[in-house]
């Protein structure tokens, strides 16, 4: 029995399944685009701690995002990152700041409301307390679904709180990893006490780094990229203190360890052309020189060196107005605090004596710090205070607490604005300040900043020398020995407290690396991908089989399409060859009927011939649908037809002509004028099904009775509904109504009435209607017989 081409639909489904499996296989096998970033030196943890230092956390904006953008007059980052919320300026009455969460804020994949944010902020505060970081707010209040209000303990602290909110992050623990609000997520983090070699990502570490034993941590950040792609950043933490002891029993010195680590790094650099090491940061001193040499020796120039830029380095500056004895005592106490080997761990920097880049000869501070006595005298005009502003409060407290400063020099923490007033007036003994490296290329710019605290009028020689050196530098002829002497002379005034500019090496093909801000651009991390890196032989085999299945399916479908096209051409040929003579017969009848003086009997014959030819043409058209419904309906789904009473006129004319010829009283009740619905069906198909249903209603009439046909048109959800009613002989009530739509079924009533036919009319209607996505049903079998056709509504036409 001919059916709709369901097999074709199954094939399509099978192809899609295979295609999906193939793509899934590809996605599974494909190695994500990966940046491998090695953090050299004493950053024991690959990922930054919870409390962000905006200067050193170069992952800010990837996984973790700041709660508030910095205040308009503060720029903590050269390249601003998206904040979690927009934050108001402090309220003048109570100093409160309202943070309005950005729409669609999610912690990993979970949407966040303000009520859910508060516990996360409280958890952040708990962690901050654990490391003696002051909590910016005293109270948090939820204000609506998307706002949180922070209230400080005093209204005057509002400005400081607003600044500190730019340091707060919304973060949650997820196993060993953290969940943040950024587009990236931590997908692999090493649990405490676990050796990096146990990580599944261990094999991705360049062998030269792996072998040295200096890897302390591994972590992977990942984000989706496009439909199937992923981007990854593998972060490797390196520490020379972790280097194995050799020979047995003898601990290598720091210098030996540092050299061993540098050697491994250079091996990795030299061996990584085409390998996935793309970024190393944390070099200083002779390491930079050796990398520079390596770069020059390499014909490919695959590595570039940059120094850390835009970072602020904290310095303790003794008041230049103090005499040398007082300054020496103050600076000595600072050095005692920072010369603790653990000091710089908290600030991401190394425990080295020289903190200026040793590309140039290092500054030699006075080692070791002496245990000096508190000076006998102190000038009355200069307060004995350690002055700084609120941003550096934690650092100031740490220096203060680790030295004898706590017994002699009180802390004075001021808001940023008033702190400047005290400092400019020279009302301090010691001040903690920052210097910003404004130029990416040269430490003389750092020098320029340092000299800001030494008044030019009182330190003419220093400034004159600095000017001379900077002029030399601008011409590329820096006198390095003179520069060293100048830096050494600053020892009498300044002690560095946190990391200086640190150099990093970048593979030239690294994209997404903002060298100026020293951070990865989350939206532009793009590197060479290495496909199928982890694939085993079975993966290739599976992929090959999938490919073979796809090609075979494609070939089968192609063959089937060609055969279907051939069948359709044949059907079209038969249709044409049958229709053509029938049309010619109609033309002959028409010719006769248009002759003048035609006798009535001849005219009657001509009309009968014409009607019978029309019936035959209808049958031929039906046969085409019967033989290949898909061919008849191909593309018809994209067409549309207006359903209305006037649109049925050609079929009605045909019916009236038959009724006239048969002497039958035909009574038609059509949809009201003005009822018009656009249906998603081609006009020929629509005419065919209306013709068949009208023909059915007429054909199965009760002998001797008028033929009453009622057509109704209305619209329900998504469908145009045509209802055909007639008061003919109807259908057998003891049969399932659906059986009449199966084709080849003739009812007993039709047989009893002696009405000829093949039982295919309703089958044709069903094929046509279902072919365009509609439905047909026999609602009532008799008095009246009622058939309902539901056709999908046409899509609205696009406005020009």
């Amino acid at each position, binding site marked *: 029995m001919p059916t709709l081409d369901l097999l074709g639909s199954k094939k399509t489904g099978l192809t899609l399944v295979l295609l999906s499996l193939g793509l899934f296989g590809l996605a599974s096998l494909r190695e994500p685009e990966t940046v491998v970033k090695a953090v050299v030196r004493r950053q024991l943890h690959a990922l930054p701690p919870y409390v962000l230092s905006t200067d050193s956390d170069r992952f800010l904006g990837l996984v973790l995002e700041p709660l508030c953008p910095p205040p308009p007059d503060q720029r903590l980052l050269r390249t601003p990152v998206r904040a979690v919320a927009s934050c108001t300026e402090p309220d003048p009455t109570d100093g409160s700041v309202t943070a309005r969460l950005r729409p669609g804020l999610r912690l990993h994949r979970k949407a966040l409301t303000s009520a859910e944010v508060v516990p996360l902020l409280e958890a952040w505060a708990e962690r901050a307390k654990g490391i003696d970081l002051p909590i910016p707010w005293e109270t948090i209040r939820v204000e609506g679904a998307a706002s949180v209000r922070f209230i400080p303990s005093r209204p005057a602290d509002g400005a400081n709180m607003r600044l500190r909110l730019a340091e707060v992050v919304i973060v949650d623990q997820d196993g060993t990893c953290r969940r943040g609000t950024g587009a990236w997520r931590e997908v692999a983090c090493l649990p405490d006490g676990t050796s990096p070699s146990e990580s599944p990502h261990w094999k991705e570490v360049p062998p030269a780094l792996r072998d040295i034993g200096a890897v302390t941590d591994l972590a992977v950040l990942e984000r989706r990229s496009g439909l199937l792609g992923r981007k990854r950043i593998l972060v490797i933490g390196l520490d020379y203190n972790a280097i194995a002891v050799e020979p047995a029993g003898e601990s290598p010195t720091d210098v030996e360890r540092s050299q061993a680590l540098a050697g491994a790094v250079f091996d990795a650099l030299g061996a990584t052309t085409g390998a996935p090491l793309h970024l190393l940061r944390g070099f200083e001193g002779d390491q930079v020189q050796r990398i520079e040499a390596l770069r020059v020796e390499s014909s490919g120039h695959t590595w570039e060196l940059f120094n850390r830029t835009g970072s602020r380095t904290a310095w303790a500056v003794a008041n230049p107005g103090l005499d040398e004895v007082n300054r020496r005592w103050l600076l000595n106490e600072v050095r005692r605090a920072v010369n603790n080997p653990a000091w710089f761990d908290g600030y991401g920097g190394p425990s080295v004596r020289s903190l200026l880049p040793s590309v140039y000869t290092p500054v030699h501070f006075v080692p070791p710090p002496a245990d000096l006595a508190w000076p006998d005298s102190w000038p009355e005009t200069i307060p004995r205070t350690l002055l700084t502003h609120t941003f550096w409060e934690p650092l100031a407290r740490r220096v203060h607490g680790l030295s004898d400063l706590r017994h002699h020099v009180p802390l004075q923490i001021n808001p940023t604005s008033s702190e400047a007033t005290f400092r400019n007036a020279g009302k301090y003994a010691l001040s903690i300040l920052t210097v910003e490296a404004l130029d990416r290329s040269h430490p003389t710019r750092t020098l320029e900043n340092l000299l800001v605290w030494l008044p030019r009028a009182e330190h003419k020689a220093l400034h004159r020398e600095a000017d001379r050196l900077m002029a030399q530098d601008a011409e590329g002829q820096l006198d390095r020995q003179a520069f060293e002497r100048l830096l050494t002379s600053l020892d009498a005034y300044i002690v560095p407290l946190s990391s200086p500019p640190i150099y990093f090496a970048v593979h030239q093909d690294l994209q997404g690396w903002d060298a100026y801000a020293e951070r990865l651009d989350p939206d532009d991390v793009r590197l060479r991908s290495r496909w199928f890196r982890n694939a085993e032989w079975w993966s290739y085999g599976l992929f090959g089989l999938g490919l073979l299945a796809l090609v075979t399916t494609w070939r089968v479908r192609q063959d089937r399409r060609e055969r279907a096209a051939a069948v359709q*051409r044949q059907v*079209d*040929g038969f*249709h*044409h060859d049958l*229709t*053509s*003579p*029938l*049309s*010619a017969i*109609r*033309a*002959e*009848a*028409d*010719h006769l*009927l*248009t002759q003048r003086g035609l006798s009535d009997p001849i005219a009657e014959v001509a009309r009968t011939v*014409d009607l019978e030819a*029309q019936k035959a*043409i209808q049958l031929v*058209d039906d046969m*085409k649908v019967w033989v290949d419904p898909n061919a008849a309906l*191909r*593309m*018809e789904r994209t*067409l549309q037809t207006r359903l209305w009473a006037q649109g049925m006129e*050609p079929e009605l004319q045909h019916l009236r002509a038959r009724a006239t010829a048969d002497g039958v009283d035909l009574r038609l009740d059509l949809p009201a004028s003005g009822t018009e619905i656009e249906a998603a069906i*081609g*006009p*020929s*198909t629509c005419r065919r099904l209306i013709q068949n249903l009208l023909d059915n209603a007429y054909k199965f009439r009760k002998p001797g009775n008028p033929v009453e046909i009622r057509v109704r048109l209305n619209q329900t959800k998504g469908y145009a509904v045509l209802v055909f009613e007639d008061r003919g002989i109807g259908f057998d009530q003891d049969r399932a109504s659906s059986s009449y739509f199966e084709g080849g079924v003739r009812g007993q009533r039709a047989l009893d009435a002696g009405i000829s036919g093949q039982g295919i009319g309703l089958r044709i209607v069903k094929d046509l209607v279902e072919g365009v996505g509609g439905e047909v049903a026999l609602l009532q079998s008799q008095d009246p017989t009622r058939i309902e056709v539901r056709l999908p509504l046409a899509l609205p036409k696009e406005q020009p």
Partner: protein
Amino acid sequence: MILFVDDETARSARWREAVAERWTVEHLDSVEKALAAFGDSQKMQEVLLVVLDLAMYTAPPMTDKETDLGRLTGDALRKRLRASGWKGPIIVLTNSRDDIIRQSVERDGDTFTRKPETVPSAFVEVVRGRLHS
């Protein structure tokens, strides 16, 4: 003058005769003749309307691909005629009930009508409608 392109000479005679009662009709019974006439610009200036059958045998320079093995020869001729720059009305008169071709023809502003549904007397009205539109 009306050009009537149809390779079924006998079966299309009544349509031609009906039109010929009012206008001058030239019958072209092959693709070659039709293409020759379309290429004669002087002649085409006198043509008021062109009637094209759809299914006709393919002949060079037309290809089976262009005519879908002769199933759509009339439509291919129509496109060639339009490509030549002729602006007059075209009626495709066919036995086919292909809605896709109908849509393509009507989208170009031409007329698609079926022989089984348009007897010669009705066809005269279609021609008149196109000439007076």
